[in-house]
């Protein structure tokens, strides 16, 4: 066993062990398991939300995108910090509603605010369907990390299996407490890995960042700016950024709800929003590594975009340090996977199957954790491309929830369940048609177009329903805390 592989194995076991230490006794209720008693401080909330920033896409994918597309990759830099500017105001509102009405999931919010279990169920089913390929992506990414870092093609599958078992174990045992504990190690490793990469990779391959810039200008000046037109031009850059911004701002990813609902106070969430941009800015580091790859690797070597970060790291540092970088990369798969599967399972237990009784609820929830991870793992090993098409829809598909969330943040929802539901269904249909119909080749992000159609349809249906009489069905006014009780429904 090589030193790198040994460090990888030890690191993955350490992540799993920390996750298991998140709780001493098994959680007695789904609320305790999924939002941990709603008492997380600012730092833990920050770790949970920051944990969403660095997925395998961010860590490996941004370097690859910088290597293949140049500076156009910077579209990914501002949207998350900008979204947190909005979340500074929105997250406390959602947190208050969640505390007062006992929300555990995004589906609870929709069911309660729109007074419709059917609507809560519809959004939850969409959430689970769109998250499955995202979960598979994380697991497949982990296999790729171990393969690339160790240079051993046979190491990927056992690593995927081991990581999946560890994730299932600590998620089942510790719930969100385990995800938070694992996030401590993950973010500490990320800081170390980013600093090491920033210093060592440009210095080793280009003689420092200053020389890197000169080489870029000399050989790839066309990639130093975003072109006015074309498929990755200014319009694409701006609209892709806006689509992602709306998606994060309105918490359209179901796994983003647990960290908000688990916070101990509004202040913790506001403080978190203040500091997230600093962490978000560090995404520039994988991009700089990608630029280094652009000047260093030959065409064939740089074609495997997702692998360039580890490829450069392996040539610039000793094996044990490469192992640390690989563990950090593996953590970017394991911790988000845990958050994703937690989000999926609570949606199924609370909003889709809705079994009666706390024990049955926990059973369905835990069963979903096992089934979802197993399915993602089996597909990741046997049919890695099976969900590739669905993955194309994950971000923009979930983004279709944004108008419904925005309309429900006011004291009285601005839309009815039927209006919001019609908007989502038509928005998803337009998105699927634009993505797979082969008839759209424009520069505007398909997610933004379908989002616009979604809003137009929702408003039109709402106007028709209002014209036919009656105001929207209103949820009860928020009252005393209702602990884990099911939200008000029709």
């Amino acid at each position, binding site marked *: 066993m090589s030193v790198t592989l040994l460090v990888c194995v030890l690191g993955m076991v350490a992540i799993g062990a920390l996750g298991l230490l998140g709780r001493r006794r098994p959680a007695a209720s789904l609320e305790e398991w999924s939002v941990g008693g709603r008492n997380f401080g600012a730092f833990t909330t920050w770790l949970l939300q920051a944990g969403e920033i660095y997925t395998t896409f961010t860590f490996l994918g941004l370097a690859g995108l910088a290597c293949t597309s140049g500076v156009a990759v910077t579209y990914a830099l501002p949207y998350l910090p*900008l979204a947190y500017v909005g979340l500074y105001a929105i997250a406390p509102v959602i947190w208050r509603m969640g505390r007062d009405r006992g929300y555990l999931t995004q589906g609870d919010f929709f069911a309660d605010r729109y007074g419709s279990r059917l609507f809560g169920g519809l959004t939850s089913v969409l959430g689970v369907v769109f998250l499955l390929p995202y979960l598979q992506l994380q697991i497949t990414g982990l296999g790729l990390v171990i393969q690339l870092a160790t240079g051993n093609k046979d190491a990927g599958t056992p690593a995927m299996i081991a990581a999946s078992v560890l994730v299932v174990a600590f998620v089942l045992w510790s719930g969100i407490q385990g995800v938070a504990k694992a996030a401590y190690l993950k973010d500490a490793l990320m800081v170390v890995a980013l600093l090491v990469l920033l210093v060592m990779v440009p210095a080793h391959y280009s003689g420092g960042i200053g020389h890197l810039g000169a080489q870029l200008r000399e050989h790839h000046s066309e990639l130093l700016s975003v072109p006015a037109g074309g498929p990755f031009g*200014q319009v694409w850059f701006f609209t892709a950024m806006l689509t992602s911004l709306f998606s994060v701002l309105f918490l359209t990813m179901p796994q983003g709800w647990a960290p908000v609902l688990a916070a101990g106070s509004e202040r913790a969430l506001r403080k978190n929003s203040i500091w997230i941009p600093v962490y978000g800015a560090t995404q520039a580091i994988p991009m700089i590594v990608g*630029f280094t790859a652009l000047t260093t690797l030959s065409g064939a070597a740089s074609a495997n975009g997702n692998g360039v970060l580890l490829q450069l790291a392996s040539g610039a540092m000793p094996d044990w340090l490469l192992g640390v970088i690989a563990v950090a990369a593996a953590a970017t798969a394991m911790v988000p996977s845990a958050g994703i599967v937690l989000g999926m399972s609570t949606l199924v237990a609370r909003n889709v199957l809705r079994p009666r009784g706390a024990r049955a609820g926990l059973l369905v929830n835990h069963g979903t954790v096992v089934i979802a991870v197993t399915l993602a793992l089996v597909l990741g090993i046997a049919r890695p491309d099976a969900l590739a098409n669905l993955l194309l829809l994950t971000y923009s598909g979930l983004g279709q929830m944004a108008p419904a969330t925005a309309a429900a943040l006011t004291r009285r929802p601005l839309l009815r369940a039927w209006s919001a539901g019609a908007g989502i269904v038509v928005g998803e249909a337009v998105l699927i048609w634009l993505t797979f119909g082969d008839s759209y080749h424009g520069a505007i992000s398909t997610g933004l177009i379908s989002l616009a159609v979604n809003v137009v349809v929702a408003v039109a249906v709402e106007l028709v329903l209002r014209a036919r009489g009656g105001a929207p069905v209103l949820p009860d006014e928020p009252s005393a805390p209702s602990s884990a009780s099911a939200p008000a429904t029709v």
Partner: protein
Amino acid sequence: MPLALTLLAVPVVALLAAVWLPFVNGPQLWLGLPSLLVWSVGWVLALTPALAYVERCRNATATAAAAATVTATSTSTSTSTSTSTATSTATGEER
């Protein structure tokens, strides 16, 4: 608070406009890196102090509002006390 929100709007607009600004989105290098990257990182980092200032102003406003409420409550309490004393005196309850 309006000043804090105006200050916050500066990095927000700078980030949204980045790709449309010719002096930012060009082949030039700043600090040895692509100018668009440096501009984006700089303004993203500026969001934190801007938001912190908004939070500070928000807390100051909340504290002032709370103090005003306490003052108003104590004033109304002392007013009602003196009114009730006057009423009691008039009705001879003090005896």
